[in-house]
């Protein structure tokens, strides 16, 4: 029992004061019945024993017996120890003290125990909730010791996993939570509590399997709590592993799908220009009678198809570099208006007389972007809009602030994209069900734009309505830098 000396002393004094008060009350009122006095003492002792426990009430019983004997039992004013009445009173008082204090202590202990259990269950619940929010197994294992320390208000915690033979700790390596102890717990498969050194251990039990163990230093927890904690952690680890597995399988499947799509695309995209070239060349080499016009036509095809192959190779290489994260972005503050006009300049030859509208409320909006690559994205979207909408319909280009980003949009009034295709057109080598998205023979334009935008931390997307047009939009981080852009 932790002793709070002044408080304890105060209780004894208070008990004594109560005895004195009762004594003087009956002593000076003169109207008393000995039995009433005894009952009053008894009542006070009952109260004290229930409230403050055995020691104070025994002390009070003795004091009350003495006071009762001296002041109220004839001969009044003397201690008549031998009088059996005296003994009866003392025994009654003492018995009451013992019984009442015992009963109330028990009740108090039970309440405290219930409280403590409720508290631990609450903590276990909170702990399990917090564990659920952790992502992959590594993240989870790193987080668990810290979560234990925070939730259970203990000094330090460590978790050991058998499969990786690795210890995860909340802080530095304490000698009482050494890896050897943790390994021993896995072998013994049971909870260990060492109150003296204030450490406790529990196995991470999942059904009949032991996934590892954990140790806690600081206030020891109850065996049930430790057991529950171990199971909770085991379940969480298993769950995280399962989720990771599902993710890996899914990723592998997608990888396979992509690979075969890539192969298909490569066979088609690369063989098509090769076919035109081979046909042209073999015709030129053959003895077939060709006039000058025909010969020139074939040579033109070869020339164009060489360019196309070259473009394909370039785009495939760029895509690969972007995907591998090998592209270093040269970030600088760039006025959104400059980005738009710069991109339009690059498209000038292609656009011809196409009407272009620019919608911008704030001409000073700036983005933090790699100028050349950001232009590449916008140019591609403008090209797209141009290629797939009637030449007299305007293309509308806009830029507006949205949280920490500037959202650019390119809207055309073309035929729109079917909903089923919307999610696919940014996929590498996706081929539209019609020719709409076979841009220049490569399916890589939009995926490249997507990779560039995402490398900037932005997003790219499209909304479209069949019959009325499509709006492609992408976001680039806004620049709040004070310095003037060049």
């Amino acid at each position, binding site marked *: 029992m932790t002793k709070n000396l002044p408080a304890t002393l105060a209780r004894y004094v208070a008990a004594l004061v109560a005895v004195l008060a009762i004594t003087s009350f009956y002593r000076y009122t003169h109207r008393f019945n000995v039995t009433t006095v005894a009952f009053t003492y008894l009542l006070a002792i009952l109260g004290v024993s229930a409230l403050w426990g055995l020691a104070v009430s025994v002390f009070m019983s003795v004091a009350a017996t003495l006071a009762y004997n001296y002041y109220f039992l004839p001969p009044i004013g003397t201690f008549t120890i031998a009088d059996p009445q005296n003994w009866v009173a003392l025994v009654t008082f003492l018995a009451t003290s013992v019984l009442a204090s015992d009963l109330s202590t028990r009740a108090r202990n039970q309440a405290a125990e219930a409280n403590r259990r409720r508290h631990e269950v609450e903590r276990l619940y909170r702990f399990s909730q917090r564990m659920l929010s952790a992502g992959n197994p590594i993240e989870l294992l790193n987080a668990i010791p810290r979560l234990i320390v925070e939730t259970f208000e203990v000094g330090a915690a460590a978790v050991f996993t058998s499969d990786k033979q690795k210890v995860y700790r909340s802080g530095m390596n304490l000698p009482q939570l050494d890896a050897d102890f943790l390994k021993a717990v896995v072998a013994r498969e049971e909870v260990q509590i060492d109150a003296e050194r204030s450490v406790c251990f529990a196995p991470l039990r999942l059904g009949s399997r032991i996934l590892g163990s954990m140790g806690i230093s600081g206030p020891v927890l109850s065996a049930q709590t430790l057991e529950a904690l171990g199971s909770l952690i085991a379940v969480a680890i298993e769950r995280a592993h399962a989720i990771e597995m599902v993710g890996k399988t899914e990723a592998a499947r997608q990888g396979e799908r992509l690979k075969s799509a890539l192969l298909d695309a490569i066979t088609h995209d690369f063989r098509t220009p090769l076919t035109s070239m081979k*046909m042209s060349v073999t*015709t030129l080499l053959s003895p077939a009678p060709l006039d000058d016009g025909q010969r020139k036509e074939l040579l033109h095809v070869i020339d164009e198809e060489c360019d196309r192959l070259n473009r394909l190779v370039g785009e495939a290489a760029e895509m690969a570099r972007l995907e591998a994260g090998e592209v270093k972005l040269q970030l600088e503050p760039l006025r959104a208006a400059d980005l738009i006009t710069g991109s339009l300049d690059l498209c000038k030859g292609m656009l011809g007389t196409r009407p272009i509208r620019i919608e911008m409320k704030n001409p000073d909006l700036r983005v933090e972007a790699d100028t050349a690559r950001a232009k590449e994205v916008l140019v591609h979207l403008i090209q797209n809009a141009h290629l797939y909408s009637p030449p007299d319909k305007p293309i509308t280009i806009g830029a507006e602030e949205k949280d920490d980003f500037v959202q650019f949009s390119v809207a055309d009034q073309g035929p729109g994209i079917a909903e089923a295709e919307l999610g696919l057109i940014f996929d590498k080598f996706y081929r539209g069900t019609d*020719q709409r998205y076979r841009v220049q023979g490569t399916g890589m334009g939009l995926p490249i734009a997507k990779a560039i935008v995402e490398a900037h931390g932005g997003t790219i997307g499209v909304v479209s309505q069949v019959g009325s047009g499509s709006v492609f939009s992408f976001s680039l981080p806004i620049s709040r830098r004070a310095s003037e852009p060049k």
Partner: protein
Amino acid sequence: MSTPTILVVDDEPQIRRVMRTTLSSNGYSVVEARSGEEALDVMRAERPELVLLDVNMPGKSGLDTCREIRDQSDVAIIMLTVRNTEHDKVLALDAGADDYVVKPFGMEELLARIRAALRRTSSGEPVPAYVSNDLEIDFERRKVTVQGRPVRLTPKEFELLRHLVANQGKPLEHRRLLQAVWGPDYGDETEYLRVFINQLRKKIEPDPAHPKYIHTDPWVGYRFEPVTAAPAKGKKK
């Protein structure tokens, strides 16, 4: 015969350009279609002698287009494909194509296959009509009747049947059949025979799974067995 008309069906403008130039310099007249749908329209309007059909097209696929053309015409069809697997070839032939060419190909090869596909009843000696109680083949009038119902055969199927019947009772090696029907440049394309024999059996055999007319001689080739009054059962070795 006037200059044969060839319909080129490909979604790639460059390939159509080269085809147009090369085929017309070789004396064919060329019509074009950019998609399967367009091809079916052009078929009706132009009545070409041969169709060069790209397998890989957006929209209606080459194979579907091939089937639909086959449903209404016995025009010669050569498919152009980028995939060179047995499976893809069989798919193309199954869809009703007479031949296929794998991209990229040399023009000489394509021209040779065009000539082969256009060649009909090349080895000229007439074959007398074959008549049994459920099968009638009139080679003069190119008519086949199975259990009283007329059956339509594609030119290559008909040619194959003609060779088998002309040599009835004798096993014909794969190579010989291929060269007789497709041309001297052929000989190793056994999958052609497999597909075409299957189609023939489906068309003329009462039970294609247990053929009574067209028999397979393992490791050798195929044999047409005339059925006399009592129908023969199984293979005769």
